[in-house]
């Protein structure tokens, strides 16, 4: 996506300037520099992730272009919802003991497994669609970004 990495990188430059002023002014307060630095790292990670997904486009200014490829979209995911609940139950178990920890962990693991299956099914549906659309073409086409979960 054109320009996608510009916003986080520009913003992180502003943060770096403020962090440097902080370090100079506070004579290198470690915890403040560490939290500030960590925060900048997180923003950079967003920028780098976008750059990795669209290396030719992410740092170029201008309009996003037309994406003609179809997309596979999930419409519901019980596994994703239950994974969230599983993490909640697992955390709750740290206060109320073993059962909730094991129950939450089991739900979480099962749901993460299920999410992998869902993702594979989505990819398979996408490739099947491509084969149906272009019967002569080998299905070497990469799934669009919509299938990356």
């Amino acid at each position, binding site marked *: *996506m*054109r320009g*996608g*990495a510009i*916003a*986080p990188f*520009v*913003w992180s430059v*502003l*943060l770096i*300037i*403020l962090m440097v*002023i*902080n370090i100079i*002014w*506070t004579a290198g*307060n470690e*915890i*403040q520099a560490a*939290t500030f630095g*960590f*925060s*900048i790292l*997180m*923003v950079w990670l*967003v920028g780098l*992730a*976008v750059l990795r*997904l669209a290396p030719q486009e992410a740092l170029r200014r*201008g*309009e*996003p272009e*037309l*994406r003609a490829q*179809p*997309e*596979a*979209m*999930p*419409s*519901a*995911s019980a*596994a*994703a*919802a239950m*994974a*969230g*609940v599983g*993490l*909640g139950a697992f*955390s*709750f178990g*740290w*206060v*109320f003991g073993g059962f909730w920890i094991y129950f939450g962990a089991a739900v979480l693991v099962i749901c993460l497994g299920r999410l992998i299956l*869902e993702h594979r099914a989505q990819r398979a*549906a*996408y490739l099947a669609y491509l084969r149906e659309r272009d019967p002569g073409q080998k299905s070497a086409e990469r799934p669009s970004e*919509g299938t990356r*979960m």
Partner: protein
Amino acid sequence: MSTATTPSALTPPLRTPGFVGALISTDHKRIGLNLGIMSLIFFLVGGIFALIMRSQLYEPNNSVVSDNTYNQLFTMHGSTMIYLFVTPMALALATYLVPLQIGSPRISLPRFTLAGFWVWLSGGLIMQSGWFTSDGAGRAGWSAYAPLSNGQRTPGVGMDLWVIGAGLAVLGMLMIGWAVTVTILRRRAPGMALLRMPVFTWTALVSVLMVVGAFPVLVFAMALLYANRMGVAIFQGFTGAIDWQDLFWFFGHPVVYVMFFPYLGCAAEAIAAGAHKRWFGYKAFVASMMAFAALSMSVWGHHMFITGGVVNEYFAFSSTMLIIPAGIEYFDCIGTLWGSSARFRVAMLFGLGFFIQFLIGGLSGIWVASPTLDYNSYGDYIVIAHFHYTLFAGSVFGFFAGVYHWFPKVTGARLREGLGKVHFVLLVIGTNMTFGPMFALGEEGMTRRISRYPTNPEWTTLNQIETIGAGIVALSILVFLVNVVVSLRRRVLAGDDPWQGHTLEWWTSSPPPPHNFDRPLPPIRSYAPLKDLQEQIEDAEREKQGAPA
């Protein structure tokens, strides 16, 4: 020029009907609605806590609740409002609206977003479950200062549940924030360059960048606090107390702006649509938002002026610098209204209310940004007044501006204007009666977080005004809920674009279809593509009539 297109979908959506289907839907609109509805329920819960506290403070030495219960109430009121209402509601608005505004058929990482919602909700319920334990809920304040929050000074599972609940709630919001960030950066429609994104989307972008940068620190800090409560020596002595405050406020101040920017976006969109003008000074606004967000990541130490653990000059400098981007936003608001043919619909009234009420919070912020003045107000009601004017008088007014503006898009029905105006008037009166006298109480020396105060006629009168004001606020919320019920049961159909909106969400049907747009998008040449289209049509009509364009 962009190509008019609708991003295509591979298959029609698998309809999963019913209640369960709504809870596991990966449609961003459904997730946004679920998050918004649950946040609103938590808002009512947090409001009830506030009403009980105000009842306790109606008279000196009152005994509506015990001191211990009062400690739980103010902790859970603050925590509920911040972790479970204002912040997640801002993300709910972003989750629902951003893909529509940028012309995307969906949100990025939809399963991740859905999981984030459930992690957040689990956290909220775990936090509230403390009420059902024998020790009661968390009672160390929403900021859980060490060493007050350690296992010796605040024992009991209720506080443990608070720590875990707050950590999970913030983790869930972080997941949603990631998804919104990636959506904005990756899924804009053809033609929608960064400097053509709508004003609300920009406010959402800077908010979610702050979420991504600051929220992991709190998740980490809550894990450390939990270990500290279990006996691991982490936040010990003076250094430990300062370290906790550094970690907490590194999240705690940016979150104030996450609770502000999207509502600023709501107010700006409502005002621009009501004024029938483009938002004035768009590029200056965008630059000021970026600067505002960066500065707001560097001001957290102003919460620690009196500790002696931070360099006050740096944080006073960065905090005072916030005046500049804030001033640009006010200038843009005035510029938008200047010479416009504004119609004072309810959304517009709430938008203006946002700017005017927030001004009081902002100006008192100059006071508390000065270490010298802050020494005198720290821990008293001036601080309470200041942040309630920013978060309630500011954010909540912006939230209602957004609700009245986008309710027709979400439901297909209009909210009643008459009831809306009653809601607005009551909220203005109630807000200022509740929070205005707090400045005077603080000046008189009343400290925060006390359940009883000595008999003092002046304090008693001010507290009674505040309690009556809180009742009026509650009444205004009741009027709003009645308005919602009436408007949904006896629908006045809104149509697709009842306000002649400027942004892409008004291009689609109300409510939007599963993939957001059933017809090709218009060309996107500016941050107000539908305004461009309206102007083209007006020009063509003028040309047809022979008048110069």
